[in-house]
């Protein structure tokens, strides 16, 4: 049943090679090697398209990609956990190096020093940015990072209730539920103005800035939590930390974030990387891989995966998590990004996003009928209360070649969540404002 024609350029064995191998094995055909498969289920019909050449698949994918509108051609004010920030050219060049991209997990340190040293840089840079003691080498994304942080807090405190501030991203809440409820842990929602914790509350989960873009009163929440023996788990935005105090400064015990804003393309939601940091006393309860510095037999410095007895390949069902990745290549992008942006660049990006978002907010709040329903300080994202339904407004934007914000009217009356970054020009913001001015009544 050998295919008569070869289709794959990725299989180098020739007919002659195959014949030689078959002869060496002393079998009559390859099929004989598959004899353990029940006969009635061997070689089922496989209904797939005919194979395409590289030229044809390239054309087909270009066609599909061009059916999508991108923020490159349509101004876009979407955020809600993924943000369009400037990515210096260097980032793509570094992660496209095959020595990083096509390497395996660094279980063999002698042939993985490039990956291991990069992860050590990643952990260091994230700790510096977050003002936390320890960072791991990365989680899947921001949502699973906060879910795993909740599980970790329950392990540390040996308590089983998780308080979730009602201002965190609904997508995060959904992922947290998926992760924690099967383990018999209980989630409950609390309002920032009325934080109720009890003796069973392991942690309180806070997003700062919250889903609506505003800062929470972390100082006060930390005080309430710690007085109750409850851990403060905070999810933050890494660009925000370029300008504002880090949660670590207020005593947060575990701080996580979506790493995408740090040089990672939007890519319709992934791959991203979850950033995960904690106080040093909790390191042995951390999920995920950790790299440490050590020495070799000739006393030269080098790096290895360490504290592995927390992990599934050693501890199996008693591991801190089942995770078996660190999104290493995305972590490499983060290192190239922070490395080239540096202290000044990150600060600059944060301030540009801040000023542009505040410019947009002040212009919008001057349009009759529009208002900002929340007080307090926001960073690069804010909610607008609209005189028309946000759904209609977004449709109107789209008809006029602009992608608006996130409709949050299920949570905030007539609320539209708008994100502005350094990528949005004044022209784009002014266009947004003029379209809002045009669309003030339900036509």
């Amino acid at each position, binding site marked *: 049943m*050998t*295919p008569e024609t070869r289709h*794959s350029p990725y*299989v180098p*064995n020739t007919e002659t090679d195959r014949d030689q*191998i078959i002869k060496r094995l002393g079998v009559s055909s*390859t099929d004989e*090697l598959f*004899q*353990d498969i*029940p006969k009635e*289920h061997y070689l089922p019909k496989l209904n797939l398209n005919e194979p395409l050449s590289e030229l044809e698949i*390239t054309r087909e*994918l270009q066609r*599909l*990609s*061009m059916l*999508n*509108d991108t923020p490159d051609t349509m101004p876009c004010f*979407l955020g809600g956990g*993924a943000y369009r920030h400037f990515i*210096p050219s260097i980032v793509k060049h570094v992660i496209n190096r095959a*020595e*990083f*991209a096509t*390497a*395996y997990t660094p279980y063999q340190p*002698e*042939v*993985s020093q*490039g990956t291991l*040293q990069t992860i050590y840089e990643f952990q*260091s840079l994230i700790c510096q940015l977050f003002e936390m003691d320890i960072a791991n*080498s*990365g989680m899947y994304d921001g949502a699973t990072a906060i879910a795993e942080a909740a599980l970790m807090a329950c392990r540390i405190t040996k308590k089983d209730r998780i308080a979730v501030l009602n201002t965190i991203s609904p997508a995060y809440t959904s992922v947290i539920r998926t992760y924690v409820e099967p383990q018999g842990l209980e989630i409950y929602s609390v309002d920032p103005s009325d934080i109720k914790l009890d003796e069973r509350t392991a942690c309180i989960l806070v997003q700062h800035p919250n889903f609506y873009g505003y800062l929470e009163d972390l100082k006060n929440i930390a005080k309430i939590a710690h007085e109750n023996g409850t851990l403060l788990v905070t999810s933050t935005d890494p660009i925000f930390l370029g300008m504002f*105090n880090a949660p670590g400064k207020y005593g947060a015990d575990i701080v996580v974030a979506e790493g995408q804003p740090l040089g990672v393309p*939007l890519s*319709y*939601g*992934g791959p991203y990387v979850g950033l995960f940091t904690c106080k040093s006393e909790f*390191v042995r309860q951390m999920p995920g891989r*950790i790299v440490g510095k*050590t*020495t*070799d037999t000739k006393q*030269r410095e080098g790096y290895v995966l*360490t*504290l592995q007895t927390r992990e*599934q*390949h050693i501890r199996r*069902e008693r591991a801190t*998590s089942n995770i078996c*990745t660190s999104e*290493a*290549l995305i972590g*490499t992008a983060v290192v190239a990004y922070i490395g080239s942006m540096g202290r*000044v660049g990150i600060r600059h990006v944060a301030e*540009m996003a801040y000023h542009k978002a505040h*410019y947009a907010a002040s212009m919008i709040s001057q349009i009759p009928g529009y208002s900002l329903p929340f007080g307090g300080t926001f960073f690069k994202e804010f909610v607008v209360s609209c005189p028309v339904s946000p759904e209609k407004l977004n449709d109107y934007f789209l008809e006029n070649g602009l992608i608006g914000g996130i409709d949050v009217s299920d949570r905030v009356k007539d609320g539209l969540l708008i994100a502005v970054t350094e990528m949005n*020009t004044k022209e784009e913001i002014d266009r947004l404002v003029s379209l809002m001015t045009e669309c003030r009544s339900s036509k």
Partner: protein
Amino acid sequence: MNIEYNERRTLAQRSLKGKIGTTLPKLDVPAQDMPDAEDIRTDLFLPEVSEGEVVRYMTSISQMNFSIDTNYYPLGSCTMKYNPKVNEEMANLPGFANIHPRQPKSTVQGALELAYNLQVILAEIVGMSGCSLSTMAGAQGELAGMLMIRAYHVSRGDYKRKYVLIPDSAHGTNPASAAMCGYEVVTIPSDTAGNMDIDALRTACNEETVGLMLTLPNTLGLFDNNILEICKLVHDCGGLVYGDGANMNAMLGRTKLGDLGFDVMHFNLHKTFSTPHGGGGPGSGPVCARDILVPFLPSPVIRRDTDEELDSYSLDEPDTSIGKTSAFHGNFGMLVRAYTYINLLGANGLLEVSENAVLNANYILANLKDYYNLPYDRVCMHEVVFSAKNQKQQSVSALDIAKRLIDYGIHPPTMYFPLIVEEALMIEPTETESKETIDKFIQVMQIIAQEVLDDPLLLKNAPHSTPNTRLDEAKAARNPDLRWHLSS
């Protein structure tokens, strides 16, 4: 000056105040009121390095890695096959790389069509009814699959089930995922042929059985020839069968897990479908399920609606779903790569993958079994597990042999796994290596077998050719140094 140390200086050691690595535009809006001074950060300490220095640093450390493009990886259980370059180019098309996950559906129809097509293709390859692409790695696919089984039992009011059966040859992620579902693990031993001990399974199956987690072929590289009976035993006691797709490379086009009796399974796109490993991620772990479990698939699932012969695609969140497993829709960039690869191969190309993966593994088996102990001497699938227990008698371990391979430019095989094989060396040649490379590997392994007898110290001190010799892992764990500090 120690030159090597110099090349490996960290970003912190390279930082000099005033250096910048990028340029940014001037603010084009009027400056706004700043927030309260007490909220403003005054202690942001990050390295300051120029762009060229970052590039040279990262390029030079990258060259300390082995990688698929530079070295051969006969690495069992991880399918380190060649990663086609066109995949990368397709994932980087601006229409895929630059779209925001919350864009309105009318602006992302191309992305949704691709994802929908991939769902259909993956389900077809394993003979399942539905698929979700939202799980971001194999281990997360396992977790989602087991949560679906849990949701199924709960939906039937069947709350008494609490034991997950897992063979002793399984990956560590299997028991870890079962534990994350709140279940307890019952380990099923293997028999002398390397199959699951069917009598032990029969004894373990009862009304408290959640189901079975099984890798096929198993981690010994063997296709369990009792598979139909295994699935039947589990089903007969009301349990469901979960398939770990780590070893799908051997099965492509040869048989469908759904036909064999599996109820749910995950793929590792980074193993079977050639997306790069990236030094440990990002991967992608789509979940496919048969009809009874489809309602519980993780959200979102891509839906196609046809109206007057016009197709439109949308994200669907089924009511009975186990919920979301990622903030958005999974690792879309990896889906583009896998879709490119599968379309380049077609059905015949997939058969060619499994054919050559299995031929190459058996070729290695035949040529090395006189040199290394072969605990299960039967036809293998895509990988073969040897034991270095004979070499151990010369006080040379599997680890020493693995490290010695590095000196010959070959990445070590997976070692000490599966746990049931003493001094295990698990070798998966893959289909993307030429017979010439595999012949060289065989020859090197034969030379090493002789070196064990002639010069054991040569192996015990290996590798000799790398930037670092063996590293002190005990020291790393005892005195954790997990970061550098910069305080100005």
